[in-house]
């Protein structure tokens, strides 16, 4: 058992680093498919974290949550997204408004910002500041992706990343919410992605492109 405990603690300690790496890589990624994979990886890391926490706290609920993360976020959503990308038959690039280098730089700045911002809270509530910073950075990166990537699907991914960050924050600060709520949130998320998929298809059908920055009929 001790070995598990140790592994769990080790996972927790190192996962933040891995999360930062995924964040940076998403920012630099050029193809949608890469982003999806990275998102899945990110979710897998988080799932690992939950399992680790579950071991540390001997919580059955946490195992259920971890299972759901694996099921929904690591398997279901990414595969759905991949299928959508294939069926859309549009160019595989992310059509970023910023160059990969600049994106990387911006995300790096965001990570730094996240560290600065969370410090007072981490201290006040005796929380793992690295984890909290990771969560915040993921949220910020999600936002950044949504603002800077013109492809509709990338907005979905950005949203998912953002949501991931919030989920991670919840995990770090409060060790998750009550199970029913968590399940509800997962359900909502799944539905949300499905619905967005429907809309992406409709955009493709109606406009014959999936560039959201060109959806500018309605303004003023």
């Amino acid at each position, binding site marked *: 058992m001790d070995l598990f405990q140790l592994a769990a603690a080790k996972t927790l300690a190192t996962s933040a680093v891995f999360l930062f790496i995924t964040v940076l890589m998403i920012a630099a990624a050029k193809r949608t498919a890469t982003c999806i994979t990275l998102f899945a990886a990110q979710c897998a890391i988080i799932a690992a974290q939950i399992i680790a926490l579950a071991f540390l706290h001997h919580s059955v609920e946490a195992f259920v949550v971890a299972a759901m993360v694996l099921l929904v976020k690591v398997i279901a959503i990414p595969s759905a997204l991949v299928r959508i990308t294939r069926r859309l038959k549009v160019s595989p690039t992310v059509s970023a408004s910023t160059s990969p280098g600049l994106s990387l730089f911006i995300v790096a700045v965001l990570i730094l910002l996240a560290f600065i911002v969370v410090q007072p809270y981490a201290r006040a509530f005796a929380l793992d500041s690295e984890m909290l910073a990771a969560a915040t950075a993921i949220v910020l990166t999600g936002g950044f992706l949504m*603002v800077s990537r013109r492809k509709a699907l990338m907005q979905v991914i950005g949203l998912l990343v953002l949501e991931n960050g919030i989920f991670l924050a919840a995990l770090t600060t409060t060790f998750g919410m009550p199970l029913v709520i968590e399940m509800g949130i997962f359900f909502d998320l799944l539905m949300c992605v499905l619905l967005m998929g429907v809309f992406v298809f409709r955009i493709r059908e109606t406009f014959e492109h999936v560039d*959201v*920055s060109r959806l500018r009929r309605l303004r003023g």
Partner: protein
Amino acid sequence: MIEILFNSLLAGLLISPALTLLAFRSRIARHLPATVQLVALIAGASAALVVLVSNLRHTVDIYWLSPFPFTLAVDRLSAFFLLLICAVSVPVVLYSTAYIARHYSAQRQRWFWTLFPLFLLSMVLVVTADTAFAFLFGWELMTLFSAALVMLDGCEGERRRNLFIYLLMMHAGAAAVFGAFLGFLPNTGLLEFASLRASAPFLAPAMRTAIFLLAFIGFGTKAGIVPLHLWLPKAHPIAPSPVSALMSGIMLKTAIYGFIRVTFDLLGGGPAWWGYLALAAGAVSALLGVLYALSERDLKRLLAYSSVENIGIIYLGLGAALIFSAQQVPQWAALALTGALLHALNHALFKTLLFLGAGAISDSTHTLDLEKLGGLFQKMRVTGTIFLVACCSIAGLPLFNGFASEWLVFRTFIAGGDLPGAGASIVLLVAAGVLALVGGLAASCFAQLYSAAFLGRPRTQEAARAHDVPKPMQIAMALLAATCIVIGVAPSLAAGPIGAIAQQLVPGAVAIPASDLLFMPWVACFVVVAAAIWLLIPRISRITPTWACGMPGLNSRMQYTATALSKPLRKVFAAVYRPDRTVRTVPSDQPFFPASISYRSVRTTSFERSLYRPAVDSIVVAAKRLRRMQTGNIQVYLLYMFLALVAALICMRFV
């Protein structure tokens, strides 16, 4: 007794719209709504009279019905304005029975008879309201119903624009009125006038000032003081005549009522500069109003500008009253207030009459353009005589009612010469000069109006074919004209009771020396006898052609028109008008041998040009800038969200 009368007024005005909707299809019951309204109005007038005489206060409380305290109370001041509304509306209703039926389709008639009593009711609400909520409720309804009645004549093009300006300015004015009443709240929390009055002494001086200024602006907008008068010459002319009569004759007075109620009653007077402000507004309005009136050729617009002038005179009186009460001279304050109130009554009478007369003119000639009228007296003897009475009254000629009130205001200005402060004295005496100038200009203006419309030769076929209007319209106008003469000959009949109101409003005022007006009957007798003597002397008379320097073929185009008549005066006051003149010569390359020359002179008032346009333009420009922020790009929208979040987070540190 009062209770029954007042309640029957309210009930009558409330049920008559329903009656209209129910009974209008039947031929017999068609006149039922008008009859009910007449009865209700007479009941209301008698209720008001009873209150005026007996000084009993009567209240109706319908808080059980309304969400906020809603009380109607008739005290002396309310009773005066209630009397004004009811008494003046009686002839208007009578007039409308004939006028509306002659001019509108059955559907529009129904529309009129539904809204008209509601409009009256809203005005009754305003002047009898005893809580801020009731007042504002009535105040907003009044605008709404009047606008709906204005739309009776359709709303196309220019009319629509005018209506828009009317509603917009009224709404903005109402916002100020809201502010004025609610400004009392921090001190009392209650909406009843009694508690507002009680809380007034404890208001902070800044708040008192704010309330006064808001009331001044809010009620000033409704009353049409310059430069807030913009809507007045636009909205009044486009309404059907009975409605313009009510709007100009009565609705403007509700603003006077509101101003008096807030300033004199609720706030209980204030520093002298309030008075100077009102006085200045009055002087400017009176002068500019009459000057603009002088240059108008559209009869109704001319009358509307003349309303601005008369409201100016009322404000002169109110300003003087405020100055006197600030200087602790209550008896003169009361006299000035009496003058203002009497002028309000007089203006209601003669302006209603003039608008009804204008309705009669348009009824028989289908035009209101003074350049197209002329010689109507020959065809419309009764209307012509009545209209003359109205013109004399509004010109402030002795023996007619306009003189009595102007005389009172003059007297108070002269009394201002005895005030201790040099500033106050000079201001009041100068105001007397302004009033004199205004009086002179008004006399010229209405002499010109009357002679252009009624005397000389008809200028168009329509004018030549004019005929007098039906009996009900004549009777309605005759009633008003008779009242004008009665008050003109025996002003103390009206000035006495009004003096009692003023005495109540100005604390410390003693008996009013308005009894001086008792000599007017003697003057009247003298003038009438002196004029009538000559009728007894037998004279031989012969009808000859007009002298045309010995040439034949004098025609109507050789007469002076209204525009030509006022030319000398307009030339002297050219600085006020500043018209945009355009002369077009066709063909343009031969200026000395033109095929035709057209001359156009458009007058946009300088207020519109330099005050309203820039304000509206800047708002529109700001709106367009904001519109550009709404780019349509979802990424920008998301960015706004993130920025809003960041801004809120930063602000969090400081709150």
